[in-house]
């Protein structure tokens, strides 16, 4: 039963030159968007190590948003192409792990597209809200408990068998 007070938690990685600046512009323009996204600034989306995304999800994020410059506009020539390549690989991995596609999103947002920051964030928050909580920390705890009880029952069985042999 989902918690009625649950709110999506989204971690965002924005590149310094385009998307972070666009988010600043959204602020200066006083656009209003959902408060569920918390931005971590990196110099380039190319710095987004897939581990950051996995770590965020593992620590309880319900979604991860990555923002970079449009293809061809990267401040560092082609960092965003590297991001794109890595992202596509990671998506397949996440898919196999059963993490829905809409939870992890890569967007190209240029410095002038404040309106787009608002649009993407609102859209993503709504999508993740529909999906419900990912809650990996709780799942990890559940799995750990399951593993422990499985192991416990195996050990139990082994003991029983040992007793039978003994007898």
């Amino acid at each position, binding site marked *: 039963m989902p918690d009625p007070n649950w709110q999506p938690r989204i971690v965002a990685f924005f590149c310094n030159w385009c998307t972070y600046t666009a988010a600043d512009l959204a602020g200066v323009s006083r656009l209003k968007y959902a408060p569920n996204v*918390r931005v*971590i600034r990196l110099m380039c989306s190319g710095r987004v190590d897939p581990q950051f995304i996995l770590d965020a999800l593992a620590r309880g994020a319900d979604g991860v948003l990555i923002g970079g410059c449009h293809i061809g506009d990267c*401040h*560092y020539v082609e960092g965003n192409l590297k991001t794109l390549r890595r992202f596509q690989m990671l998506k397949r991995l996440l898919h196999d792990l059963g993490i829905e596609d809409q939870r992890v999103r890569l967007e190209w947002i240029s*410095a*002038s597209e404040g309106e787009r920051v608002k649009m993407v964030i609102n859209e993503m928050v709504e999508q993740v809200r529909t999906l419900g909580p990912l809650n990996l920390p709780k799942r990890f705890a559940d799995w750990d408990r399951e593993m422990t009880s499985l192991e416990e029952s195996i050990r139990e069985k082994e003991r029983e068998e040992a007793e039978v042999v003994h007898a």
Partner: protein
Amino acid sequence: MKHENSNGDVRIGFYICHCGANIAGTVDCPAVAAYAAKLPGVVVSRDYKYMCSDPGQELIQQDIREHRLSRVVVASCSPLLHEQTFRNACAAGGLNPFYFQMVNVREHDSWVHTDRAEATAKAKALAHAAIRRVRFHRALETAKVRIHPDVLVVGGGIAGIHAALTLGNAGKQVYLVEREPSIGGHMAKFDKTFPTLDCAACILTPKMSAVRSHQNITLWTCSEVVKVEGYVGNYTVTVKRKPRYVNEELCVGCQECIKACVFKEGKFPDEFNVGLSKRKPIYIPFPQAVPQVVLIDPERCIQVKTGRCKQTCLEACADRHAIDFTQKEQLVEIKVGNIIVATGFKLFDAKRIPQYGYGLYPNVVTSIELERLVTSSGPTAGDIVLRDGRTPKSVGFILCVGSRDLKTNRWCSRTCCMHSMKLAQLVREHTDADVTVFYMDIRAPGKGCEEFYDKSLKEGIQFVRGRVAEVTDWALAPEEEGKLVIRVEDTLAGFVRRIPVDMIVLAVGMEPQADAQEVRRLFNMSCGSEGWFLEKHPKLAPVSTFTDGVFIAGCCQGPKDIPDSIAQAGAAAAEALALIDKGYIEQEPNTAYIEEADCSGCKSCIPLCPYTAIAFDEAKQKATINAALCKGCGTCVAACPSGSIRQNLFEDEEIFSEIEGVLSYA
């Protein structure tokens, strides 16, 4: 953890700024400060009205001394705005500036959210992230890189000319690169300038000649920048110099060759007179052109096209030998430290609004066509005439053609109101025609401009408020026979009117250049959604771009009049001078480096670097990074399979701790 300072032994000072009501209006700042005070390592936690003010910065310095702070976190506006301010404050307090971390609770929080509880919760999480992160910060030094003192100015309109002259006068070597065969830009086509009605050529020509004769300015016309590499202080620029088939050094501009051309009369549309006159394949763009050198149009010249011409021009040039059909396109490489982009605008194509009949009715002209007609050096020697040679008895000006219009361009082109009133006064001066101006709003905000509007009203120019619906030659009344009829709802009178006139002038607006996107990519700039080049800050850095050492001036940044273009050009030149005269730039120490012990020598990082900063040390079988070449994007850091590449200011543990922090929901 690898670094000695990652232990729990840090003393953090946390400050949250109210920014007046900008932050405090939405975020409960005292609550955030109270929350931060309880976090591990925080020894001082304060909220203050204006952290960026002198007392605010003094507060940080005092706390560093009194509380022996080893880390500082300020939650206020965007780091892009004030990170440097607070780093300086830390340095003044005796702390290495890179022990500082900034939290953006204004642009990313208070300004974009309305719910106080939610905004406060977000501010707490962002603050938590920075407090966790700052623990891992290390003392860093900025590297100093020398600045090449030469400057490239792209575009030889009035903005480019002024920037080049300012820099040249300051003793700097300037390359002025212009695509057209002459500098002067749009201003050279104008007859008079508003609101003073002084002659455009009289004020522009001396500046153009000054460029030509200036010992510090290298002028390259018929040239385009094709490649830009490097970074602030050290750009390598490749310029394509197109052949003009005339040697610039040898030609004296006597124009005997033009007379001698096998084409006895001009046959091809003259670009400078916007097609209102004809020129020959060998021509000089306009009488005051700089450089005063003829050129040959390779698309039109028989010799260039077919090689079978009598070459009468060669004979006329005689022993000067200035004409050279063997000229080829050249690529020239130059080194500069700063670049000023002043590539200007293009005029709106009036054919895009078919209901105004441009291209259909010969006597519907654009404002720039009328400008050429009123100019005494223009195709009619200053006579305003209809296409059949008659003098118009009535002229109508339609404003906002391709401006303030959702179907074409939303922006106001800023100059058309004044430009049209100037032309209206000139029409009254040259003919005794009745002049009617159809406007939505008259925008005359510049110095002397409102007074000019008053003068126009007093001189009997009629103003009709309303957006013109259409222009037609379909006469419904005898007085409309043989005339163009303007159909407009007069919004002041409150009814639809039909006003017959002889000539209609469309005040076409300004648009970004057709190749603005390519130019933007070339110089690593951004464009706004309209296509104008984006300044770094709309108020505080109007001529800077997001690429250091690249500045913008004039209409490439947005529509503006001549004084504003010149003001921007001067500002851009001053910004470049400030960098040059300092002699060096301090580079953000966010470079990547290798933990040699962990590097397996797999070489996967090497092809990732667009700056070839990573090399392979064959002896050690390890990758090495040249910090001077590294720009700090961090792409290699993310890609290293063994985690042996690290990035200053963006260390893995710093980012992981930030992730943990932003996910803390208090």
